[in-house]
Structure formats: C-alpha cells, structure tokens
C-alpha cells in the first residue's frame, strides 16, 4: 500500500497535477465542498433540521452584508428561518451522496456488461450493443425521469430509503451505456493480446481472465469517464429534484433547495435560490475541470 503511494507521488499524473493551476484550484474547491458536506454536523453554524432552534422572526433574512441582514446568518435565511449556509452543506451532502452512489452503480453495471460484450462477443455482444444504441438515442434525463416515474407509480407511498434507491437506480440506468461502450472497445483490443492468450492456454477460466487480466487494463478511460459522470449525475439529480421528482422533501438536496427558493424569486428574495444554484455550479464545474485534466494527464499521446 505504501509502495503504491510513493509510486503515485513520483509518477507522471502527480507531476502533471502539480503543474496545472486549474487542476489544483478545481481540486481544492471540490475537496472543500466534499469536506463541508461530509462534516456538515461540525462545520455548519446551525442545524437546519432542528425545528426547536428555528425562529419565524428570522425568516427570509438577506445575506449578512445586505441591509437588514444579520451577522448570525452569513448567507441569509429561507422562508422558515433556516440558515442557508447550513442548509447548503447538508444539501450538498445529499447531492454528493446520490451522485457518487449512482456513478458507482452505473460503473459496475457498465463495466461488467462492456467486459462481457467485448470478451464473449457473438450474440451476447450484438444484443448488449443494440440495447446501448437504443438507450443512446434517448437523452439520459428522459430515461431517468421515466424510471423514476415508474418507481413512483409502483410504490406510491414509498419509504424515504426506497425513494432514494429508486432515484439512484434511475440515474445509474441512464448512465451505464458510456462505460459499456468504452470498456467493450478496449476489451476487444486486449482480448487478442498475448498475455490473454497465454492465460487461456494455461487453462485459466474465462471469468478469472476477465477479472484478473483484462479488467485492470481497461480501467484507465473508465476513471476519466467516472469523474465526468459524477458531475453529470449531480446535475441530473438536481434537475430531477428541481422538477419535484427527485429526493424526498424530508431530506432536501441542492436541487430541492433551488426549487423551494424559486418560489421566492418574484418577491425579490434572490438569495434563497441563488446560493444553492451557485454551490451546484461550483461543484459541477470543479469536478468537470478535474475530469478534463485527468483525461489529458492519462492520455499518453498528449505528453
């Protein structure tokens, strides 16, 4: 394990990271957001879910530097007197959680199916790729909406946990195709390499060849894709929550906060919706920039 770390810090990727100011800035922002989201209980100045501490007197206060704002609430408060800064941190936690979970799930699904399609070939390959073609011809947000809608119709009074699972499943099922296509492409190349043939000759079982020999060699592009997909998944989640079909209202994500704040836009209380929006863009943009950098850093042709 220690050897892996020294190898990483001596390696090209770390060097390329240190010489790219954009990547460093993006990583700092992403890590800061992640930190606030993970440790919201300790970092956040207030607990937005503690109903006892909410005071209606404090509702709809503007940010601290605007006239009428209170130093107690740096970014202002929402219609129920919740501190927006704290709500942001708790909201980011839910957004990131859903984002990471759905990327993980779609990665497992996509890599598995891609590996299978590339390694086995024939009818299995043709079938999986036809399914991919069909999925690709529809925008992913539409697929996510549809699966989410079906989940809702199947379990109308679903428990919160189930609602989360349906949401994560919907986002994952709309995103696995990219992994499958990428992995299939590289598997087709790796399949005919000598080390795979050697493994076959000495009688290693196909499943073990796929897992031990082919898989590690096709994971590079998957890593890049996964980073970019985290941003896409977070945006999809926010969009679904904004449309009112995402996370349950009891655990608001950034999208839910934007949706709620949107109702107050016309009465001039812009801060209720703008801060969560800014947070969302900040997370999405920094993760996207990191993904772009990683793609260039891992691409040997660009070195």
């Amino acid at each position, binding site marked *: 394990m220690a050897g892996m770390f020294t190898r990483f810090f001596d390696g090209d990727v770390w060097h390329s990271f240190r010489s790219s100011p954009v990547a460093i800035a993006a990583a700092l922002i992403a890590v800061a957001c992640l930190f606030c989201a993970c440790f919201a209980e300790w970092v956040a100045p207030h607990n937005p879910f503690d109903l006892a501490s909410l005071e209606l007197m404090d509702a709809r206060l503007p940010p601290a530097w605007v006239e009428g704002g209170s130093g107690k609430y740096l970014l202002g408060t929402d219609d129920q007197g919740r501190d927006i800064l704290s709500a942001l941190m708790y909201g980011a936690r839910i957004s990131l959680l859903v984002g990471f979970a759905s990327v993980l799930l779609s990665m497992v699904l996509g890599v598995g199916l891609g590996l299978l399609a590339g390694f086995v070939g024939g009818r299995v390959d043709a079938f999986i790729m036809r399914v991919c073609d*069909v999925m690709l*011809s*529809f*925008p992913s*947000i*539409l697929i996510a*909406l*549809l699966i*989410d*809608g*079906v989940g*809702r*119709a*199947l379990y*109308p009074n679903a428990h919160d946990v189930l609602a989360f699972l349906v949401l994560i499943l919907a986002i994952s099922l709309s995103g696995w195709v990219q992994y499958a296509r990428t992995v299939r492409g590289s598997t087709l190349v790796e399949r005919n390499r000598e080390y795979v043939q050697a493994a076959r000759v000495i009688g290693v079982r196909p499943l073990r060849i796929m897992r031990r020999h082919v898989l590690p060699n096709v994971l590079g592009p998957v890593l890049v894709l996964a980073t970019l997909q985290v*941003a896409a998944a977070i*945006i999809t989640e*926010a*969009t679904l929550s*904004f*449309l*009112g*079909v995402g996370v349950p209202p009891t655990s608001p994500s950034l999208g839910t906060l*934007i949706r709620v704040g*949107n109702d107050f*836009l*016309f009465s*001039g209380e*812009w801060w209720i*919706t*703008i801060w969560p*929006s800014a947070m*969302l*863009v900040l997370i*999405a*943009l920094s993760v*996207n920039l990191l993904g772009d950098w990683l793609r260039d850093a891992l691409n040997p042709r660009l070195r």
Partner: protein
Amino acid sequence: MFVFILRRLVQALIVMLAVAFIAFMLFQYVGDPVSNMLGQDATPEQRAELRRQLGLDAAFPVQFAHFVANAVQGDFGLSLRQGRQVSSLIVERFPATLELSLVAALIALGAGIPLGVYAALRRGRFGAQLLMMLSLLGVSLPTFLIGILLILVFAVLLKWLPSFGRGDVVAFGPWTTGLLTADGLRHLLLPAVTLAVFQLTLIMRLVRAEMLEVLRTDYIKFARARGLSDRAIYFGHALKNTLVPVITITGLQLGSLIAFSIITETVFQWPGMGLLFIQAVQFADIPVMAAYLCLISLIFVTINLAVDLLYFSVDPRLRAEGKAH
C-alpha cells in the same frame, strides 16, 4: 440499397415495439384499472364482468396486440388525473412544445454558426478565447438554472419580459400559435433562449472544430493561391463543407430539444407536453406517461431513421458497403 433501408426500417420497428411493450407493461402492472373504475366496494362478480368487457381476461399476446392496435390509432384511454382522453390532452399541448423547440433550434443555429465561424477565424485572440470560456460555462450550467437566471434578470430585476405562460395565442382549428401576437412572442423569448443555450454551445463548438479542420485542407490553400477574397474562401468554400455534420447533429438534437423542453416548460410554466408529462410523473398518471413515451420515441426513431437515410444518400461509401453484403 433496398436491403439497407429495409434493415433500418425493421430496426426502427423493433425499437417502437419494445417501447410499446414497456408502455403496455406499465398498464399491466402499475395500478389496477378495474379497481380504479369500480371503487372499493364492488363485488367480485362485477369485477370479473368489467374485466371481461375491457378484454383484460384475454391471453397476454392478445392484450398486447390490442394495446398496439389502439396505440397506433392514438387511443391511450383516459388520464387518471384529469379524466379526459389522453389523445386530446396531447393534441392540445403539442403545438406549444413544437413551437418552443423549433424557435429554440432556429436561435441555436442562427447564433451558433456565426459564433463558431468567428471563434475559428479569430483563434487565439481575446474575443474568441472569451467565447470558448463562455461556452464551457454554458455546457456546465444545468438548463433549469439558465432559466432561473434569465427570469431573475429579465423578469424580476429589469421587468422587461414575462416569465410564465404562453401569453395570447391565435387558434387555427386545433392548432394554436403564439408566433402571431406580440404578447405571444414576448412570452416565447425567454423559454426559447433557455432551451437554445445548450444546443447553441454545442453547435458553436462543432462549427469551430470543423472550420479549423477544413481551413487546413489543400483546396483552401489552392483557393488562396488563386487569389480569391477571404470572404469567398471562408463562406463560399470552408463554411459550406462544415455544414453537413452541423445539419445532421442539429437534426438529431431536435429530438432532445423536445425532450429537454420538459425542464424549460417546468421553469416557465409553459403549457406544453413536457409540463403535462412531469405532472403525470408526479401523480403516477400512467396513461399520460405511456402516451408521451410512445410519442417521443416515435419522434426520435423517425429522426434517427431520416438521418440514417440522409447519410446513405450523401455518403457513397455506405452504398458500396451495402452492395458488398
């Protein structure tokens, strides 16, 4: 050639059947129409009778065939929430969505192509760099945020434009249009721009990349050597050759414009199909969801098929491949 078209047609048909099957499964396993129609205190005999009348006791393939036959005629039954024919709901809403998507596509093309050409010709200069940065932002901003920002700036702060609804519309029989009234156009502007932004950045980046590619080719150098004016080279020779991929991408993106209008219509409360669909998802209104799914798939499959056929007639290599098979 005939084989190629036939194969594409069969593929499209299979996709449509698969979609119809999904829609059919929704009807079958989500909610029970019989208990919806009869209420809680019906006797088992009444249920069986209604089941027989509705054809729900028939074998599975028979029911599916029945469903497809109805769907082809546009009959998806009654909306569970509004109690009206789904087909009439959709016919009512379709013009609003189509109008919004077409205007958005026009804006995206009308602004995206010139901006892309500009970014390619002035590569490395400040204006072009700024444009590329802005386009990166346009790709990272989710559609609904663009809508909210536009509302905040143009409707709330400046109070120039209305922020919801379609405004005054003119009706031609079942078709309604807001394009002919000043109020309708004012209402159309913000949602159309919101919907166009993503496609605009896409088209701009595509035109820029294609232009840079074409400007490197020999025939452009030769045109320069012949002493043609910059104008004739850029617009007569280079731009023309970048437009084939641009038009195909735009064609393919027209379908996703209609799908993405779900979000724009929610932000601006635009009374189109997308709003209908999102309300159907919220209330688990299966007939509306199924009808929207089938209609959208039909649009997508048709567009894909048309683009495939277009490629086939444009690209001679595909034709040769078709003969080899």
